[in-house]
């Protein structure tokens, strides 16, 4: 007989399926990498030459700027649209619906072409009394630039998607939370800011991460405006005169990958921040404190 209190030492379960599938996949991956390395069409020397080209890194910066500015617009406008959509006011609800209907219902490429043509549709923006005197007049051609129309076009389109993500997040928070906050005398705005949105963030962040990464790549469509200083257009522009399209596409792809990787790391930390309190699992520090409390004679704790 063994003593039942000895810790169990079991023979681990054998998993031959895992080993076989891993061997097959690793072999296939190696074959692909070998093929790519030895295939002249990829033209690795040119790839190496242009990977850290200053024009490429400058273009990557433009792509990143477009992504960040467009997403900031999208998140702010998206929260506003989501709140409008959930409000008691039927006019606000209807307007929000109309916005979503239009901006989700037309291709972003078409919208960007439209923004490129905006100067021929609206020459001037007047701020003043309708049909009356105007106080300030902007010349759209003077104020606007291709870069500006690019982030406006991308941001307004994305806001429609963000609105739905934020709305889902807000709806995911239990009604009891709003009630408890109201019962404590919090106003609607305080309840939103302190109680509902922080909890909604857990639901909002993962799909928003998706959207940011998607936006980073969608910026390549701003050629429709046309804006050609971002990563993809710039890589094409370098490639065309030297007839080396494939290696420069690889250069662009590499930069996109690096940027999305950085964004994924940022998302991990954001998720971790907003998941506080969501799990029963205690941190190692809390567990240590509990173990310490257990050692003490009874009567000290609860």
């Amino acid at each position: 007989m063994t003593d039942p209190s000895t810790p169990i030492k079991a023979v681990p379960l054998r998993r031959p399926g895992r080993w076989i599938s891993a061997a097959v996949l690793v072999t296939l991956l190696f074959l692909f990498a070998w093929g790519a390395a030895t295939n002249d069409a990829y033209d690795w020397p040119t790839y190496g030459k242009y990977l850290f080209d200053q024009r490429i890194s400058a273009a990557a910066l433009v792509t990143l700027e477009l992504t960040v500015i467009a997403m900031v617009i999208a998140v702010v406008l998206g929260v506003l649209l989501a709140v409008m959509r959930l409000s008691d006011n039927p006019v606000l609800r209807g307007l929000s619906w109309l916005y979503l209907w239009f901006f989700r219902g037309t291709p972003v490429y078409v919208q960007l072409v439209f923004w490129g043509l905006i100067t021929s549709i609206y020459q001037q923006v007047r701020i003043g009394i309708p049909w009356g005197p105007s106080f300030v007049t902007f010349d759209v051609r003077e104020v606007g630039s291709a870069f500006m129309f690019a982030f406006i076009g991308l941001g307004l389109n994305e806001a429609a998607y963000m609105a739905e993500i934020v709305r889902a997040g807000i709806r995911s928070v239990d009604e009891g939370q709003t009630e408890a906050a109201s019962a404590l005398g919090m106003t609607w705005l305080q309840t939103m800011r302190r109680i509902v949105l922080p909890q909604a963030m857990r639901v909002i962040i993962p799909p928003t991460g998706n959207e940011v990464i998607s936006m980073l790549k969608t910026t390549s469509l701003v050629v429709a405006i046309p804006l050609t200083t971002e990563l993809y257009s710039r890589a094409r522009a370098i490639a065309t005169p030297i007839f080396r399209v494939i290696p420069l596409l690889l250069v662009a792809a590499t930069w996109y990958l690096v940027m999305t990787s950085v964004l994924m790391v940022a998302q991990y930390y954001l998720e971790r921040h907003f998941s506080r309190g969501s799990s029963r699992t205690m941190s190692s520090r809390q567990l240590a404190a509990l173990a310490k409390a257990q050692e003490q004679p009874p009567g000290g704790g609860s």
Partner: protein
Amino acid sequence: MTEPEQSRPTPMVSAQGVHKSFGALEVLKGITLDVAPGEVMCLVGPSGSGKSTFLRCINHLETVNAGRLYVDGVLVGYHERRGKLHEMHPRDAARQRRTIGMVFQRFNLFPHMTALENIAEAPVVVQGRRKAEAATQARDLLARVGLADKAQAYPAQLSGGQQQRVAIARALAMQPRLMLFDEPTSALDPELVGEVLDVMRQLADEGMTMIVVTHEMGFAREVGDQLVFMDAGVVVEAGPPRAVLADPQHERTRAFLSKVL
């Protein structure tokens, strides 16, 4: 405006013919009752009788359709000017709720905050008190409900009874003059009910005015000053708990008590 009698103090809560409907469904069909300052009133009755709805009307989580409801002599949910009722701005309703604490069946603690943060939140955000001061008060309140060692725990890491005690402390942090309890022990495992009732008993001993919707007849008998039996949206019977529980006057009361006692 109904003037309260001179001899008696203003009731903490005064309901006069309170009606409440949800669409076609009439849940409260004229509730009239008074709760004196320092009194503990226990509301009992079968589920669907309107107890919780009445409780929620008192702090204007629900809007009354007919009748009048006063808390500390002030009309709830409306402004009365020249004999006309005006809808209250949500900001003013929020201000009214500050002095009324509420404890929910499902606790409704804020899961993204520690026990301490849950308690200190409203005093800082709503009353504009200093963080350090609110934290000190929160620690005192946690000690009062026997959870001094749980300040840094998140709600998910606490048992139901502990969560409900934190919820009581959270309501007390606003220094309410009236506490509403909506079936505070109904979601608890039987062995955890006692610890929550102990905290409530202690609160009653300190003179807090309380309205408690409950199925705990033992608590109602020992702690309650008044027992109100509700059924189908009306008050069927009210009186001192011992008297009502020992000798119910109405058939419906008898039928209900025979099931729960």
